[in-house]
Structures are given as structure tokens and as C-alpha cells.
């Protein structure tokens, strides 16, 4: 190996250790990528995580993929007049507890309609899944966000969150239909969470056996339930609508189905109300 004068490569032991030299070069490359894309290039923690993604042997986060992800994030940001998408992507790729960087490009692609125009409902739905993933990271989870467990297959088993430490699956919803229909829109999304865990074509038993715990989240973005503060208030609203029953098929929900969720998180404004199985008693 040729060593140029004036270039510090660390201690003699490191210089003689080819692997460490490669690691050093990898860090320089990571720094360059971060610098080019206006990522936090002076943040050593960020660089360390990004570097490990780039050098990930099974799912390398290549320079080209990073560029494609960030270009899409910027297009989406431009469509909504914010920097929200790039910010959250940056935070996720700098956090070691976010596991599946390999799906970022696919997930951002899904935020465009067929003719390449940003699709705002799809974008908001995707952002909700990213944000909810970040919440679970603060609870100590390693998480895969918006993950197809069987990509390309008839039943692709897409999950909004895979909670790797709790062995749980998260289904997140973003009801945004406002006006007179807003409350029913929330009920409809609650049913869709239940349906995720009860419909074989949406999630096969194989994965439910591996990740048996069920979590739901509804980020209410349609103006309904704006005064909600307690779990009991939400439970009462569902009861009052006459949609909880005891028999599958006859009622919209059964109490058992609702109680199968370890936690149902309702997000209203800046509040997070967590409903647990006993709240439905």
C-alpha cells in the first residue's frame, strides 16, 4: 500500500491493518455523501449510522439509492411546501433503531400517483407511518417501517410497523375525511385496523405467529374528536354508535376484536391517548 506524505491514516497499527484503512475510506465516502446532500455531515453519530448502512453487506444503502431517496423527498416536500419529508428521512437514516433503509425508495415511490404527481393522501399516510415508527423508537424498539414481508407475492403482507423487540405488528391509520362524515371515517379506519389482523389476505397467520402482539394507531386528521383526552371518551363514542357487538358478522366490531389490540393509540392534535384492552370492558 502506498502512503502519501501528509495524509494521516491513524496509528501505525491501523495503517498496517487493511480493514481499518477500508473503514476509514468508507467514513470519508459517507462524509462526502452527507456533505453533498446537505445531511448532518458534522454529526459523528449520524455519520456512524449512515456508514454502517452503506457498508451493510446484505442491504447496502448505496450512494445511488440515497440520491434517489433524497430527490423524491425533495419533490414531495416541494409539493407540500415544507421540508418535512427530507427531515424525517434524515432522522430515520441517522437512527440505528430504524432497520429497513432498503424500503425507503419503494415507500417514497408509493407517494406518487400513476402519472408521477405527488399524491397527498398517500404521502400523509406514509408520513404518519414514519412518525409513528419514530415514536416507537423512543420507546426503545428496533423497528421496520412500512415493510412488505413477502414482496412481490400475492399476499405481500405489508405491515406499517414491525416492532422487533416486542414481537408486535403495528397498523397505523390517517383518517382525513372531514366534515359531517369525519367521525364515521374514524370508525371505518378502526375497523380497517381490526381487519388487518383478522383478514388472511392482508396478513397471513404465519407472520401473526411470529409477531403475535397487535398494535393500532389512528392519527385523527379530520377535525373529529378534537376534545378527546381520555380513553373512556373514545370507547364511549364507539359504544354510542351501536357498532360494538358480540357476534362476528352482525356487528361492526366485537369487543374481543377490539381487546385483541395490546394498545390502540389515538392521536389528536398533540395528544396521544392510549387505549388498552381493559378500557373496552
Amino acid at each position: 500500500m502506498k502512503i502519501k506524505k501528509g495524509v494521516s491514516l491513524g496509528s501505525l497499527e491501523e495503517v498496517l491493518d487493511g480493514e481499518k484503512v477500508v473503514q476509514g475510506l468508507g467514513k470519508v465516502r459517507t462524509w462526502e455523501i452527507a456533505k453533498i446532500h446537505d445531511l448532518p455531515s458534522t454529526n459523528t453519530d449520524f455519520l456512524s449510522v449512515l456508514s454502517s448502512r452503506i457498508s451493510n453487506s446484505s442491504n447496502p444503502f448505496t450512494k445511488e439509492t440515497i440520491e434517489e431517496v433524497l430527490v423524491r423527498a425533495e419533490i414531495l416536500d416541494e409539493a407540500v411546501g415544507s421540508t418535512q419529508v427530507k427531515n424525517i428521512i434524515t432522522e430515520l437514516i441517522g437512527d440505528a433503531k430504524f432497520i429497513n433503509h432498503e424500503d425507503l425508495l419503494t415507500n417514497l415511490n408509493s407517494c406518487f400517483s400513476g402519472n408521477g404527481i405527488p399524491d397527498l393522501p398517500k404521502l400523509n399516510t406514509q408520513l404518519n407511518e414514519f412518525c409513528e415508527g419514530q415514536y416507537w423508537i423512543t420507546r426503545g424498539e428496533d423497528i421496520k417501517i412500512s415493510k412488505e414481508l413477502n414482496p412481490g407475492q400475492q399476499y405481500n403482507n405489508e405491515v406499517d410497523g414491525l416492532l422487533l423487540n416486542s414481537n408486535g405488528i403495528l397498523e397505523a391509520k390517517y383518517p382525513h375525511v372531514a366534515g359531517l362524515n369525519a367521525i364515521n371515517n374514524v370508525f371505518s379506519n378502526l375497523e380497517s385496523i381490526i381487519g388487518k389482523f383478522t383478514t388472511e389476505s392482508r396478513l397471513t397467520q404465519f407472520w401473526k405467529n411470529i409477531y403475535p402482539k397487535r398494535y393500532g394507531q389512528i392519527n385523527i386528521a379530520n377535525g373529529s374528536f378534537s376534545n378527546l383526552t381520555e380513553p373512556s371518551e373514545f370507547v364511549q363514542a364507539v359504544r354510542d354508535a351501536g357498532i360494538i357487538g358480540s357476534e362476528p358478522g352482525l356487528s361492526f366490531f366485537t369487543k374481543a376484536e377490539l381487546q385483541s389490540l395490546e394498545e390502540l393509540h389515538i392521536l389528536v392534535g398533540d395528544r396521544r391517548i392510549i387505549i388498552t384492552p381493559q378500557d373496552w370492558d
Partner: protein
Amino acid sequence: MEQIKIKEVDYGSWGWYFDEDKKLLLNKKEFFKSIILISLKYGINLSTFGIENNLKSAENVDEVVDRIFDIVADSEGNPLLKAINYNFYSMKFSTRIMASVIYSKEGSMPVKYIYNDFFSMLFCTLKKENLHSFFYNLRSNAFGQVDNNDMLFYTNTTRFNSYIRSLHQLMQKFDASLFDCTFTETNSPFGISKKGYFLDKDDECIFYEDIYDLLPIELRYTPMEMINNPMV
């Protein structure tokens, strides 16, 4: 059958609201039968119970209505609400299915198929024990997809418009006092009217009856001709 890529997103909601439900409960079988007939006539939100029990035409609708009301009779709660839930509940898939006829293309050939929508919902709610709302939440883009093919767009959206129009007539007959439709533009490239109808590129609302005779035979949903509109 062509698979439609689905992102689980709310595309639109149609909600009819009632101040009081006396007329509904007095005539619950008539109301429920009309729901099934309107679905059959336009091929939208077909009875899952009917499909799984071989209901193919309007001739045995009365039998299906009676069977469903018999099934729900022994349990507690509002019978009409339960009947509507049961109508869309699939014993085969253990979930609700909104099954609709969709016309699409396979290569250059038009194809007709039943699209099993596991994401959309149709249900009723109560308020102070009275039936309060009839609500349809569309969570797929099956009807409004354009695919650069005007004929298919018209084939699907005009049937949908006629379906919604018949529901308007039904709800009016049963004294619904309020209606609201909220729609996401991206599913309807040309917009939506206040009454919840797909608009076309000329901002016009077209119904299936307006274009049926102009469609090629392979794109005609023939039950539309055979079933009289139960609400007219």
C-alpha cells in the same frame, strides 16, 4: 384478473344522516331489499352473502332478505344495522368485503371481473339507539383509475354515479335529512360533484344510462337493463 395496486388510503366518503328512523324501521325489509337491488343493478357493492349463497339475479332477492333477517333476529341490537353488516360479511374470508364489477384491460382486451375490496366499508351507526347514519367509505381507487383509457373510465365511473344517485333516491324516500360527500381529488382526476358523482374531463356528470347504448357490447353491464330501478 388484473390486480390493482392498493394503498390503504381514504379516497372518499358518502354519508346520509337521519333525524329519526321510524320510517326505516317500519319498512326495514323494503329498505334493505332496495340496497341489494341497487347494488345488483349497477354491479357496485354487491351482497357478499348473495355471492356466497349463489344469488345471481334479482329473482331471489326476497329470499336473501328473509334469510338475512332470520339470521339476525335472534341477536340483540338494531335489526337493520345488523342486516346490513351481515350482507357484506364474508363467511369465507371472515371479514367484510365490498365486491364490485370492474372493467379493466388485459393486454388490449377489455376484461370484466369482480373486485373484492377488503378495505372499503359500508355500515350504519346509531345515535341515542336510533339509526342515525348510512355511511360508505371508499378506500380503493378501482373505479376512478384512468389508465389513459376514456372508455374504461366512463364504464366504471358512470355506473358508480348511477349507484350513488339511486342511493340518494332511496335515502330521500326514507327521510334522510343530511348528506355529505368528501372526496380526495387524486382518485377522481376530473373532480367530484357536491352530490358525490365523478365528473369527466369536461366537468360533466354522466350517468350509466346516458352512455350505456354507446358502449361496445363487451363493456355493457347487462343487469342494468334487466333490473328496474327499485326507487323510481
